[in-house]
Every structure is written in C-alpha cells, then in structure tokens.
C-alpha cells in the first residue's frame, strides 16, 4: 500500500471508499418491498463501488485488489458506525455491556455484540496484526477464504488455520 497518488493519504482513500461504499450499500439494501432478498452480496457491492470510484478518478487505485484492501477497513467502519448509532438510539446515549437478553428473538445480531467484536479485534491487532487483518477481511469485509488468500499472499490452507486461531483468540477476548 505504498503507491498512492501523491497527496492522497491512506486515510483519505479510506474515507473515499467509505463514502462510496455507504452510498452503494444504501441503494442495495434500501430497496423498498424487497426485503426477502436483503442478504448483502459484499463482493458485488465492493466491485460496484470500485468501478464507480475508479472511473471517476483514474489512477487513484492501483487495481481492484488495492481498492478491496482499503475497502475492508471502510466496511468495518461503516458497520461499527451504524451499530454505535443503533445502540445509542436504544439506550438514549451511553453504551452498555452486551447482555444478549431482553426478549432475544435471535440475539446473535445485537448491534452491541458487533461493537464488542470490533473492540476485541482492535485488541487482537496488538497480539497479532496478521490475525486481526484476517478478521477484518473475513468477518468485516466478507471476503471468501480464496479471496483472503489472494489478498494476503498465502495459501487457502494457511487462511483456514489462521481463521481458527483468530476466532479462538476472539472467543477468549469476548468471554465474560
């Protein structure tokens, strides 16, 4: 990630990716009356955002893989921002510990759980930046094992083994 356009920091690129992804995601997800198909195809979404940004300012992105690497961070920010907003709305401000309780319908998608996973992933980066990056790509950016392998330049087998280790560490970090 060294060959950015002069003058554009990685942060600025992430911000661009963030804005474009958010727009594309909104369009994909907010189609009225279509919520039977609301599962998000992230690969398609990221591809669409890339095409738009790449055609708007040629040369800013090395290639789609470069965009995708930046986009994975942006995806994480988008989700965490929304989870934070939702949690704040729910509690009128202050955050609260995850209890996964209160009429849980299928509480494994409580937004506060996402915030907890995000925080654990940040701590995981101190233990092993490699495993944290894997979580970002696999969990937050929804890349497949094969896509992650290409992105990180390792074999699929390595991705699988690291994925188990990363999740074992996250499970420990998230344990009450």
């Amino acid at each position, binding site marked *: 990630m060294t060959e950015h356009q002069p003058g554009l920091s990685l942060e600025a690129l992430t911000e661009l990716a963030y804005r474009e992804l958010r727009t594309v*995601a*909104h369009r994909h*997800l*907010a189609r009225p*009356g279509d*919520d*039977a198909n*609301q*599962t*998000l195809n*992230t690969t398609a979404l990221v591809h669409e955002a890339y095409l738009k940004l790449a055609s708007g300012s040629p040369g800013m992105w090395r290639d789609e893989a470069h965009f995708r690497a930046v986009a994975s961070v942006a*995806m*994480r920010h988008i*989700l965490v921002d*929304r*989870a934070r907003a*939702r949690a704040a*709305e*729910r*509690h*009128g401000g202050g955050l609260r510990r995850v*209890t*996964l*309780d*209160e*009429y*849980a*319908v*299928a*509480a*494994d*998608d409580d*937004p506060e759980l*996402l915030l907890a*996973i995000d925080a*654990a992933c940040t*701590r*995981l980066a*101190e*233990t*092993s930046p490699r495993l944290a990056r894997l*979580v970002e790509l*696999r*969990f*937050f*950016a*929804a890349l497949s094992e094969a896509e992650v392998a290409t992105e990180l330049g390792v074999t699929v087998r390595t991705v699988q*083994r690291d994925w*188990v*280790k990363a*999740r*074992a*560490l*996250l*499970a*420990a*970090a*998230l*344990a*009450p």
Partner: protein
Amino acid sequence: MTDARARGGLPSSERWSVVEPILDGALARDARERPAYLDDACGHDALLRDEVERLVAACERLERDGEYLERPAVVRFANLWDEGPDQARFRNAIADRYMIENEIGAGGMAIVYRARERGGSAVGRSVALKVLRATASAGVAARFRREIALASQLSHEHIVPLLDSGDSGDRLWYTMPVVEGESLGARLRREGRLPISDVLSVLGDIARALEYAHARGVVHRDLKPDNVLLAEGRAMIADFGVAKAILAATSPGDGVRTSTGASIGTPAYMSPEQHAGEKSVDHRTDLYALGVIAYEVLTGVLPFTASSRQAVLTAHLVEIPARPSTKRREIPAVLDSLVMRLLAKRADDRPPAAADVIATLVSVDRRD
C-alpha cells in the same frame, strides 16, 4: 494467565510469538501425539502448557461447531441496515394504539420495542411490541391474525401471554407483557450448565406449559433457551404459537425465509421431522426441542454440533448423541434416559405427551 486476564483474555505480542508456533505444532498433530509433543515443547513451563492446551481445546471446539463468527458481519448484522423511513412509517401507522418508547432487542425475525398503550383508560400499560421484519400483504395479514388469535387464547402461569396483534404500515406485530428477568439462553451463556435441582424445576415448568398448550392444539415449533424467560423463580415460555403464525404468513413452499435469510426454527433445536421439511409436525416436535434443552442445561453443551448447517441437519437426522451422564456423572439414571427418549429420531419413539415427561421428572425429584 494473570497476564492474559488483564488484557481481556489475549496474550501480548511477545507471549504470542512463543505460544503460536507451539500451538501450530499441536494442531498439526494427532490428539494422541500431543501430550508427548507438549512435554517436549513446553518443558517444565506449566503456565505455557496450560495456555496452549486451552487454545488447542478452543480451536477444536471451533472446528466442531464452526458457526462461531462464520457469518460475515454484513450478513449477520443485516438488521443494522433495516431502518429509515420504513420505521418512521410504522411508528406513525401504530401511533393511535401504541407509543413506541425505545428498542429493547433486535433479531433476524423481529425488532422488539418497549411501547406504551394509548387511549381508553388513564395510564397505558408498558408492553413489549414485536414487529416482524417480513412485510405483509392483506391476505397474509389475515392468515397471521387467525393463527395468532389461537395462540393468544393461551393463559398459563408458565406461558408469556400474547396481548394484542395486528398489521400496521405493512408490518405484522404482536405485543406481550414486559417480563423483568433473563432468558434461559443468557443464563446458560453465563453459567454453562445448571445445578440438577434447577434443571428439574426449569424442565418441569416448560413441560407444564407444553402440556397445557398442546391440549389446546397449539405447538410452539421454535422452543429454545432464548425463548424461555426466567423471572421470579420460574420459567415462562415466550412466543408460543408465533412460529406457526409466521409460517402461515409467509408464502408456503418457499422454504420460509425471513428478510435476513434465517429459516423459521433454530437448527440446533429443530426436530428431525422439521429438518426433513415435513409440513405437518405435531406436538412431539416440541418434546424433541425440550430434549435438546434438557441436554444443554444438564451438560452445558448441545447434543449435536457441527461445522455447517448441513452437518447439523444430518446429525439431527442420523446421529445418536452421547448420553448426558457421560459428560456429568451425577445425572440420575432416570433423567438420563428421559433425555435420550426425548431425542429419539422417530416421533413415535419419544414419550407420547408432556404429561409423561412431568411424571418422570416428579419421580426423579422424589428419589433425591
């Protein structure tokens, strides 16, 4: 260990550079070869060995129950995107009957709000208002209401009553009282398994609720620890009859998908006949789910875990689980065999009714 605790369960990077290669080595070896390998790799460092062994166990659990964090955030937390004008529209549509105060839960099937009843008498009651994610056409709403009307006739001390239901702004909804307490699911996540005496009382409460509802022709179909609320020293079942209503409201033969792609029923607690997609499941599907819950509260683990939905399904259809007593020795024999009978693959091989389960539980209680 103290180091790991202080850092929220995560080793420092220096520590990890020591632990990771040993962990890799252990994972690459067969379980039988590991002790010798760890003797060699850890030497006399008991703390290191303990740390590696715990990680190996965690990795193995993940390989068996691979669902953990497997669904990407955008899919799993799809509810984060479900907001905006739609919700405002619902608020308006229901404004003459309820004032929505705040969201208290959100899941694949529904969003739950705390709301206050309006109109008529002086101060409105506070209720839990569940709004289904699925949108509804007129015909669907009628079917939903017919089914939910049946469920709302249930009145039992171990069933959370349905108060009201309807459709507003394209959304189906129903209300129930606000119960202060935690779910059995939350307690299990906190404590692992329960003391035998608590197991008997929780299972007894659930079985009594089932006996009552089944006698009135209502089957739960989605019984699981998250649907069992613990309050004031007793267990109450929530969402009785709701699954059938949702089923009736979603187009038949469609695999019954909700907006986020979850099918109705929770794979870990679904009976073999539900997994097989049989259209007409009867009350014995709830008895099977009760068996799974019994297994879990006794042992702290599910009878069937696997790395994919497909594998879970297969296990429910063909695999015989280890008896609970192999995981916890003090389980009374009568209870042990009751759980195994509840988990029978063929509905005909299970106890015929919840009353039989209650009788067995009472007999265990007396023997103690």
